[in-house]
């Protein structure tokens, strides 16, 4: 199922996330991360979206995966962080 969230990151920007959620297996099938935040380099967001496919929709797993991607690809987010992304994704869970 396709599910969306809108999440205002504390002291940050407005995150709008759309997830194709596989309820049976509790995983992300597909994800689109949009909003008025900043990320350097910008193209890293597409990479992040690809890498989040098939990740378990649980706080711990999401947070760890996002932190790993950020550090591996040296991504700098402004107006959002790993916690904010995790929260926005989890809010897509019905």
């Amino acid at each position, binding site marked *: 199922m396709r599910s969306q969230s*809108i999440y205002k990151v504390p002291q*940050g*920007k*407005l995150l*709008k996330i759309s997830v194709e959620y596989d309820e049976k297996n509790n995983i992300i099938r597909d994800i*689109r*991360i*949009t*909003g*008025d*935040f*900043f*990320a*350097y*380099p*910008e193209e890293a*967001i597409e990479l992040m979206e690809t890498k989040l496919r098939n990740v378990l929709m649980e706080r711990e797993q999401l947070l760890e995966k996002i932190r790993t991607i950020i550090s591996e690809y040296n991504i*700098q987010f*402004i*107006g959002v962080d790993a916690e904010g992304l995790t929260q926005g994704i989890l809010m897509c869970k019905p």
Partner: protein
Amino acid sequence: MKEQWRLLQTGFNTAYANMAVDRALLVANSEGIVPPTVRFYGWVPPAISIGYFQSLTDEIDVDTCKKLGVNYVRRITGGGAVFHEKELTYSIVIPESHPEIPKNIMKSYGRICGAVMKGLQHLGIESEYVPINDIVTGGRKISGNAQTRKLETVLQHGTVLMDVDVDKMFSLLKVPNEKIKDKLIADVKQRVTSIKHLLGNEVSFKEVAEAMKIGFEEEFHVELIEGTLTKEEKILAVKFEKEFFSTKDWNHRR
């Protein structure tokens, strides 16, 4: 002797051409063939630009834009949707390694916004930088800014509001919750301002540009020398307009 940077006054252009020129400047600067450059420009027809990460159809009422003859374009910079009508837009491109540009992104926002604030001061307007990317006066936003760093080069562009029509702006933008749209519009009217509102009279684009020129010169201790786009920049701009900014692929990609 003061360092000399280039000043470009490219006048009023379409959203696609405007974004293409900024990207062309970034590429040309990264190749070391042009000095750091400050550009002032406007938008005709009026246009909405959205941030790189935004969903076009989530943010923009495309049908109303078409009906009112308003262009829309996706920027290469992050940030939010902006309605460009009565404003001066600036851009600056400069190597990341330039001593005047802090390595830290947030600090560099503050520094470049400092130039805009000094420019406003020359118009008699006191303002302050409010992180992440706003300049406010009396608690109200007068300038929004967005920066990208590519090819070891900084591009920051931003608006200086000369006048603002919040009702028109909201007829072109979508809001997350239609039920509270009226309240949102009322709130935004309280939270934005413009040169005209603050000074009580219209100030011409030319006057604002003159003040901003001085602002950039003072902030960066340089002399801005008016120049033109190089042949290569023009070719690049035409290419970027055709291949990216005027295409559905680019504008609707998210």
